């Protein structure tokens, strides 16, 4: 089996099957849908308070940085969707696009994990086959991208 990501002269080469592309295109859709419910565990997980004992400071921080974070995530998802449009035939990602792709995989895994009640590592054993497969596949892609980006940007 060939690897989905490879280092190339222009950045990171990506090639996925049509089935993989179809699955991944659902990730941003899932994130948008879950984000509509502020009480959903996934939304809660993606909106972590930084001040644990100071609600006023937290409110002020959230007022300034909340929309900023939302915009950054929307930009990542937009890059993710654009890349996927070309992924079945093969495309090359810049490092910035590859990092955005990696962050959306992370966001998707966090949202999925929170949705299925993955609170501690032992909870993996309780997951259904489909849930575990989805998390494992996203983890596989993310791990591959981490390997490539480490090689490209940190050595």
């Amino acid at each position, binding site marked *: 089996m060939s690897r989905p990501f490879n280092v190339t002269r222009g950045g990171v080469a990506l090639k996925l099957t049509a089935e993989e592309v179809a699955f991944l295109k659902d990730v941003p859709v899932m994130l948008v849908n879950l984000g509509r419910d502020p009480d959903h565990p996934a939304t809660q997980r993606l909106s972590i308070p*930084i001040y644990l004992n100071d609600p006023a400071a937290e409110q002020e921080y959230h007022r300034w940085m909340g929309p900023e974070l939302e915009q950054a995530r929307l930009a990542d998802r937009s890059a993710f969707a654009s890349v996927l449009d070309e992924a079945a035939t093969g495309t090359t990602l810049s490092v910035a696009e590859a990092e955005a792709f990696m962050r959306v995989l992370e966001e998707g895994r966090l949202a999925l994990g929170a949705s299925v009640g*993955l609170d501690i590592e032992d909870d993996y054993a309780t997951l259904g086959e489909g849930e575990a497969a989805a998390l494992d596949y996203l*983890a596989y892609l993310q791990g591959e991208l981490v390997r490539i980006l480490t090689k490209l*940007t940190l050595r």
Partner: protein
Amino acid sequence: MVVALPIPVRTEEFDDLVNHAEAWKVVVWNDPVNLMDYVVFVLRKLFGHSKEKATQLMLAVHNEGRAIVADGPREKAELDCYRLHHHGLWATMEQ
């Protein structure tokens, strides 16, 4: 009449007080979803830690539940938390 004012001298004790008042710690908490290699990558990328240092911090998060990954004035700590959240890590700050 000219009055000679005392010239303020910055002492080590004064610096300690200022630094203590300003120092905020950025804490990353354990999360069952995050991949170990991903956490190491993010800590290296955002804070410029060596591979060894980032691995040590990741293992502290994994084994002890949390680790202090950065510190500094309040504004810097807030920005660090923002960048960690953008990368999905569970980050808070404390004094």
